[in-house]
């Protein structure tokens, strides 16, 4: 199999790959492997959550009631919708629909920003009510000490998730620029596809976080 530059290879083909298909396979597989590492990353926090919820179920119940279920549910719907728009963006890229790709990417980004906006509202509310772990933390008796652990885990998990959302926004922006420049087509839409995988993953993490944090005691 000859190496070197074949007659007309796609401008996106990197030189160390033999074909666009190999490059696509590698990129897609790579994103899946990366997402596995992310599962383990969040996994440590899930372990801490399980331990402390088992030890202090009453504290968990009392503390969870301070989270706004309506906002949480709204955010869940927003993210699920954004996964839909992301899937539509991938489809558009796959069919060479440049404007459609850009539109759906923009919609995804907007929904992501809405999500983050709601989180800002929620976090400010926590700050006002002295529910941020640290020197200002206050909680009603009798759980005033241990409730801080719940909120530490809440902020760590949702904060880690929000950080991934922000990075996701950056990825969307990068894809948007690429889409507007006409980089994507049926022959090459891998970045959109793997960006989509990342976005769906961040969505799935939230789908676990929502019931575990917001719906404690709601059967």
């Amino acid at each position, binding site marked *: 199999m000859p190496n070197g530059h074949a007659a007309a290879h796609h401008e996106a083909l990197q030189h160390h790959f033999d074909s666009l298909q190999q490059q696509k396979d590698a990129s897609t597989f790579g994103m899946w492997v990366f997402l596995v590492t992310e599962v383990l990353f969040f996994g440590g926090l899930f372990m801490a959550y399980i331990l402390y919820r088992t*030890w*202090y*179920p*009453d*504290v968990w119940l009392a503390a969870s009631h301070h989270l706004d279920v309506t906002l949480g549910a709204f955010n869940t719907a927003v993210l699920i919708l954004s996964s839909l728009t992301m899937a539509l963006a991938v489809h558009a890229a796959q069919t060479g629909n440049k404007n459609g790709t850009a539109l759906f990417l923009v919609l995804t980004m907007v929904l992501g920003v809405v999500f983050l906006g709601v989180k800002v509202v929620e976090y400010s509310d926590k700050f006002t009510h002295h529910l941020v772990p640290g020197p200002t933390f206050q909680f009603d008796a*009798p*759980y005033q*000490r*241990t409730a801080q652990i719940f909120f530490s885990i809440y902020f760590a998990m949702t904060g880690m998730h929000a950080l991934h959302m922000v990075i996701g926004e950056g990825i969307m922006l990068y894809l948007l620029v690429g889409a507007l420049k006409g980089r994507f087509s049926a022959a090459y839409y891998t970045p959109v596809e793997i960006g989509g995988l990342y976005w769906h993953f961040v969505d799935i993490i939230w789908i676990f976080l929502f019931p575990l944090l917001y719906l404690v005691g709601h059967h």
Partner: protein
Amino acid sequence: MFNIPLFPDSASTFAGRVDALYFFIVAVTSFFAILVVALVAFFAVRYKRRRADEVGAPVHGALALELTWTAVPLVLAMVMFYWGASVYFAMAKPPANAMEIYTVGKRWMWKFQHVTGQREINQLHVPIGQPVKLVIGSEDVIHSVYIPAFRVKMDAVPGRTTTLWFQATKAGRYRLFCTEYCGQKHSGMIGEVVVMAPGEFQQWLAGGPATGSMSEMGQKLFTDLACVTCHRDDTTGRGPSLAGVFGSQVTLQGGRTVTADEQYLRESIVNPQARIVEGYQPLMPTFQGLVSEEQLMQLIAYVKSLGTKGQAPGQTAAPAAEGAQAPGAADTVTK
């Protein structure tokens, strides 16, 4: 001539068992080490390259050989596992008649309290031939109690109570080390265990200080800290009665049950909201920071003296079952 020690003293009933396992593993590992080294050396010489163009002869993997040298180590490993586990389980189950000594590690010293009241710092007197159980806590960071001559070790974890037990077999003085890194003077957090013949030990105990026994000190705290206001003997108190509670099964809110061991008692004092007894309100304030680790142990000793497993003292305690659940249950506190 040189008197360089190469092996530790053996001064407890565990030493022999641990050493036997050790020598077994030494024997097995030496056998395989010598076998492999001898084979490697022999092959290295026997099959040294003789001509520049020589290559190795193709030898095809024999499945039988592979399976054999997978199975044999596996079997030997399982023997070591089983033997190690049985020694460990013996270490994990103190006998019912073990004499309790409360131990607190604090940067950078060890404090021991005998139930009769003697307190020792960095030194521990114990008799020969009597099982001794250390009930261990920490004031600050994780430490670890280690007595090499007895082959025993257990971490002292803040927020928890751990135990280790031994039965000394030989009079003498044996080193005790802290063996979990705890900061600046970790290497200096050492002590000695003084093992005495039973008669001498009784004399040593009798010559103890005038302060009261652990449970007397605990009773004093119980009154001073106003525990008695809520934890009354009858059922009218805002808190449950503590008579006979130690070692019993306690039903919690939500229907779960828990064994009222040292750990549960300790938690109930410092984090009372964690596991509340069924039928009671979460009213008890926390005493975290208001009592030291030693005082916690005195309170626990006092509660133990109020009877165990549902029996008030004076009633005949149920004979301790072999391998009793709650460590230290049905112990007798001598006054």
